[in-house]
């Protein structure tokens, strides 16, 4: 895994450029156009350069990973307990090649790419994160999804010895999520295995997690150990916990009312200024339908988005 990331580092924007976000902005259009054309999904290229990319410090110290605690700083404190190697992944259901594969075996086969996506949390904040990983479609094509399958389901590791919150009943563990097959096959749908060209930090869902940029963050399930193709709609943990607040689809949509948080806008964590005080003045941006990833609109043509929220 480390080798994989090392190799990819040469091809991707050098790390020191990422760390020096201000410089990237100052380098101006030339680099901007280069990065946008080669690394960033076209739909987001313009968005990206309105804001700065979040620092690794921000990305690794502000997480929702309830297996390690409810507070945003809990995952950074407790996730070190997680053993991520070996990491068997059970692939089952309506597939041609079911079985248990180790993460390292899977990673060797995949084409590692870099994607900078806006992560929009249902709580009304967002972060811009430079992921490394592979398209979920590449994995699904390799394991061969049978044509009867309509959905793909995912499960997070269940190991209460290492994930202490799994001993409580705040959620029905293990954490589960799912996508419709066409959503899973969409080129924007990513399995992230790294961030800033490093292996994925444990608090971000090591060793592999889903990233579906046009859906609220909780759909992007972390530390996946089971993937299954199936006919019936998969369980989604937050939908199961509170169906009035969280739907199966959970597409980012500023016009679908949420009983707790305003979805019309989002606070961009990281702020505008420099330093600690700069982060105090986070800026609110208007939230866009599908989080700005309009490419996915055809997936939902003819669907009543306020009903299938």
């Amino acid at each position, binding site marked *: 895994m480390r080798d994989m990331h090392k190799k990819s580092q040469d091809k991707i924007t050098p790390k020191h450029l990422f760390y020096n976000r201000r410089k990237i902005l100052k380098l101006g259009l030339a680099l901007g156009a280069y990065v946008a054309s080669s690394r960033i999904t076209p739909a987001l290229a313009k968005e990206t350069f309105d804001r700065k990319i979040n620092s690794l*410090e*921000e990305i690794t*110290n*502000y997480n929702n990973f*309830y297996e390690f605690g*409810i507070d*945003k*700083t809990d995952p950074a404190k407790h996730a070190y307990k997680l053993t991520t190697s070996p990491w068997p992944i059970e692939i089952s259901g309506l597939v041609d090649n079911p079985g248990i594969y180790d993460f390292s075996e899977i990673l060797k086969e995949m084409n590692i790419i870099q994607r900078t996506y806006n992560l929009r949390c249902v*709580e009304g*904040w967002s972060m811009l994160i430079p992921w490394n990983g592979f398209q979920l479609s590449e994995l699904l094509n390799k394991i061969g999804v049978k044509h009867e399958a309509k959905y793909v389901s995912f499960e997070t590791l269940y190991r209460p010895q290492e994930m202490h919150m799994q001993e409580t009943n*705040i*959620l029905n563990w293990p954490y589960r999520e799912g996508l419709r097959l066409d959503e899973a096959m969409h080129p924007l749908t990513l399995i992230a295995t790294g961030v800033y060209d490093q292996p994925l930090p444990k608090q971000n869902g090591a060793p592999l997690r889903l990233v579906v940029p046009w859906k609220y963050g909780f759909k992007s399930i972390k530390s996946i150990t089971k993937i299954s193709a199936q006919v019936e709609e998969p369980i989604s943990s*937050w939908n199961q*916990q*509170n169906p009035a607040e969280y739907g199966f689809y959970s597409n980012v949509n500023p016009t679908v*009312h*949420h*009983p*707790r*948080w*305003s979805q*019309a*806008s989002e*606070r961009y*964590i*990281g702020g505008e200024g420099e*330093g*600690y*005080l700069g*982060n*105090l*003045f*986070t*800026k*609110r941006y208007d939230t866009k339908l599908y989080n700005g990833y309009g490419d996915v609109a055809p997936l939902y043509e003819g669907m009543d988005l306020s009903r299938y929220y």
Partner: protein
Amino acid sequence: MYKATKSLNIKSIFDLIRLLVRKIRIWHVYVTLLIPLLLLTSDLLSGQLGVDPMRELEKSLGVTGIYILILTLCITPLSTLTAINFIRFRRAFGLMSFFYIALHFSTWILLDMQLRWYEIVESVTKKPFIVFGMMGFLLLIPLAATSNNYSIKRLGKYWPKLHKLIYVAIILGGVHYLMMEKTLQNDAITTFIIILVLILLRFFKLRKINWL
């Protein structure tokens, strides 16, 4: 013999406390209750509030407000049970809790919602989490406004009745805290239980504990 000495000791400790309490000036209470704000400010300036200081600031101001409101409700039962008399500081506690909650509200309007009035109106009318918090704050406004000698004289027998609104306000605040996250948090549950116990105490006729 042994028992008697022991109770005598506790009694003398409490006598000392009662004596010390009599020495406290009201401004001491105001200054002491400003300490949480000073600590919060120093945490903010030194980066201790983390990646999203706004959220921490907003939460800490609200929680401090609720805690001081809880202390305000402790004053009467404490005085009845132990004769440790904080009653002359009750106004200071009440006003300082209002001060923190007003700062919490301002942080929400200015730094969190950033004066997006459409969303603010939508939130205070349609989102139960915000509706509870907002109603609690609105109820505290007349209480803070009448926390002065002139109002006590002017309102007469209505003043104590008006100030019973604190019970409604603190319950609304406790519910607001419970609803803050996607799931219930232990801190909010504990706070709510303390609030309920303090309100339930009002239904019992308390008497001074003899051995104190």
